[in-house]
């Protein structure tokens, strides 16, 4: 039997709401990204079991075994105080991905309510919130985070606060757009006319509609936050030794890396792989769930 034709272009061959399985088939990169993210999460969870020298991620040092090249006993070599780099890289999966998670939770916690209020209330409230948002968006994200982290005492907490403080406006803008479009729909108007409480409208109608774009945006942002946090650590504004932060490991290894290349190479590969995995996942989810979302946000 002849089925009804379609001249939908092939790039939209995975329409919105398609099953996950067909999405993965059409987009192998999403599958790769998902698998890598899963791997990173597993490494983070099971780091104590996987790391051959788990103590080296903490305060242990081996001053008589410094700067050993990669070998069977130390696959990634040892660092300037004799610690096993493999173990520290594995434990590092618990640091920047966690920072990313906390940053994005804070950014959503601040950005989403502001966006809802702006989109739903409209008028001068909207105007005021969005002008402030515009100002924050006028800074390249790393720049404001860097200025903040530079004036705050160097620690993971400062880095988290500094990045979160620069990230929330993206979510305010995103949610505001969603909220404003939903708030204008007839059924929401009707709800208002019926005297249904604002909170109820927000929770029943506005937030559920915003979940998909928010999820896509968050997944696209994880990689960016990890890179930003690593950059701040690299500049010495973030984690402090012996926290096995990848950016910090590169910063410390920089003094040694010309002869002892392994100090810098492996932590950097870990950052690249992690950011790559989350970006693949985010990109794939965007294609799958919200294909109209631009890369430019």
């Amino acid at each position, binding site marked *: 039997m002849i089925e009804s034709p379609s001249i939908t272009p092939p790039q939209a061959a995975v329409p919105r709401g398609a099953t996950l399985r067909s999405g993965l088939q059409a987009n192998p990169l999403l599958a790769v990204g998902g698998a890598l993210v899963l791997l990173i999460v597993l490494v983070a969870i099971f780091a104590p079991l996987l790391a051959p020298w788990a103590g080296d991620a*903490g*305060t*242990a*040092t081996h*001053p*008589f075994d*410094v*700067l050993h090249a990669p070998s069977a006993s130390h696959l990634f070599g040892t660092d*300037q*105080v*004799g610690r096993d780099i493999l173990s520290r890289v594995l434990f590092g999966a618990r640091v920047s991905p966690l920072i990313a998670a906390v940053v994005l939770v804070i950014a959503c916690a601040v950005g989403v309510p502001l966006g809802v209020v702006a989109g739903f209330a409209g008028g001068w409230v909207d105007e005021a919130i969005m002008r402030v948002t515009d100002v924050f968006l006028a800074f390249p994200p790393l720049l404001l985070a860097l200025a903040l982290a530079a004036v705050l005492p*160097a620690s993971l907490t400062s880095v988290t606060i500094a990045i979160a403080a620069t990230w929330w406006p993206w979510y305010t803008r995103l949610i505001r757009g969603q909220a404003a479009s939903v708030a204008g729909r007839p059924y929401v108007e009707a709800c208002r006319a019926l005297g249904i409480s604002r909170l109820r409208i927000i929770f029943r109608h506005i937030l559920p509609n915003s979940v998909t774009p928010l999820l896509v945006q968050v997944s696209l942002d994880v990689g960016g936050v990890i890179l930003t946090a690593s950059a701040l650590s690299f500049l*010495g504004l973030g984690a*402090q*030794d*012996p926290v096995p932060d990848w950016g910090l490991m590169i910063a*410390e290894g*920089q*003094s*040694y*890396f*010309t*002869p*002892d290349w392994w100090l810098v190479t492996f932590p950097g590969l870990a950052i690249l792989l992690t950011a790559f995995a989350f970006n693949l996942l985010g990109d794939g989810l965007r294609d799958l769930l919200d294909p109209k979302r631009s890369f430019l946000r």
Partner: protein
Amino acid sequence: MNRQRAWTAAGGTALALLLAACSGGSYSSGAKPAVSKVFTYDTYTQVIVDGWDPATEYSNGIIAMSNMYETLTRYNPVTHAVDPLLATSWSHSADGLTWTFQLRHGVHFHTGRLLTAQAARAAILRTKKLNGGAAYIWGAVKSIDTPGQFTLVFHLSYPSPLALEASADYSAYIYDTTAAGTGSLTKWLNAPHDAGTGPYTLQSWNNGQEFEVVLKAFGKYWGGWKGQHYTKVVFRVVPQDTTAAQLLRAGQVNFVEQMSPSMWTSLRGATGIKLVSAASWQNLLAQLNAQKLSAPIRQAISYGTNYAGIIAALSGGAVPSSGIVPAGLFGHFANLPGYTYDPARAARLLNHAGYGPGRKRLNLTLTYTAGDSNEQVVATLMKSSLAKLNIGLTVQPLAWATQWSKGKSSSASARQSIFMEYWWPDYADPYSWFVNLLQTEKAPFFNLSYYSNHALDQQISKVESLVATNPSAGSQLYRTMQVEILKQAPIVFLYNSNYQYAMTKTFSGFQVNPAYPNVIFVYNLKP
């Protein structure tokens, strides 16, 4: 006694000396040397931080200034005595209170003026009056007479080794105080200009730029320009020691003065490169907050530090210390009763104080200067070995200014428990350690152990006079003081630094002079 330590405090990374022989350079001042040669000094940080005043300079500016200005005497690391420089001879009265210096004839300042006793006197008095840098070296000087055109007579208020002090690396320069005419000399110097007698004079200064300072030969230099000399000196700022090493390998940098030990070692056997390792007069100290930490706890920390491990990890950059005074200096003793790594003993000491394994956790903060990879290694190793003693050490790398402000904070609770810094003397004498780091201070300045010991204070105040009049008794007093300090443990003496120089084989005449850290007297080199 103000001492800006930004320089060596951050001295773990690269300090490179670049020496580029180049035939195309132009030269236009006074007598023409046969061949124009450029000597470029490559440093990881700005050469001039405070300005160009030779009276108050107390930082890495001496790298350049020691080639532009000269002192009355210069310390000779081989003979362990001072050699003539601007002064050709000197003598002192039996009581050590009157010193007479004969000045070299025919020396001209870069301003063209002849060096006379009057000019030298004016320079010393100005330096003393401004009281910046290491001006305390002239502290004993009560008055200066100039009975002849080239004769300087110093009258001291207490005996002091003036000929040695006159060789200091800071605040001992002789310069032309009339260079600016009626205007402000400081302003004129910072323009910048120079008013020294040295072999080189300032050609250009580009603050904050890569080729920061360029010096050219001073044609009327008293030593003359016959024979082989460099005629141009360029100070180039290269922040990364990897880059400096790369430039050295490429033959663009001819002298890398300080780099990570592993980098230095990696250059071994490279063609055309010579490695020189030499003991310095610089040591790394951990000053323990005596107001927070009792003597047994300080001793426990001293026993809980893995000295052998630190020295092994720095692979050649460090040698074990014995007491405060580094080898090669007066007052050094090889067999002082010091500390070795003994965790069991440290644990016992802590247990008595209610801390240590199985007892209450002791939480401490340690500050060190950010960017110094050796300090970073030491801090990490200390944290590691102290963790085994149930001491939680929070390590904070801070910019030097921040680290120091925190140490000097008026609120005792805001201060760190352990302050890590390098120390080295201003002239070839151990006094600097004692007077700066261990004498009681009303408001903390460099005694960042906040240590106060009345008996020790008294010993410190009389030791230099004793050295001037009775050297062997003075030496014995230095020993006694060091034994007491080691017992009380206000400072952990982590190690003595080793210079690890790397240079090309394109010049000769290089000599390590620990009295002038990181200074290269370029005039003495033969390209």
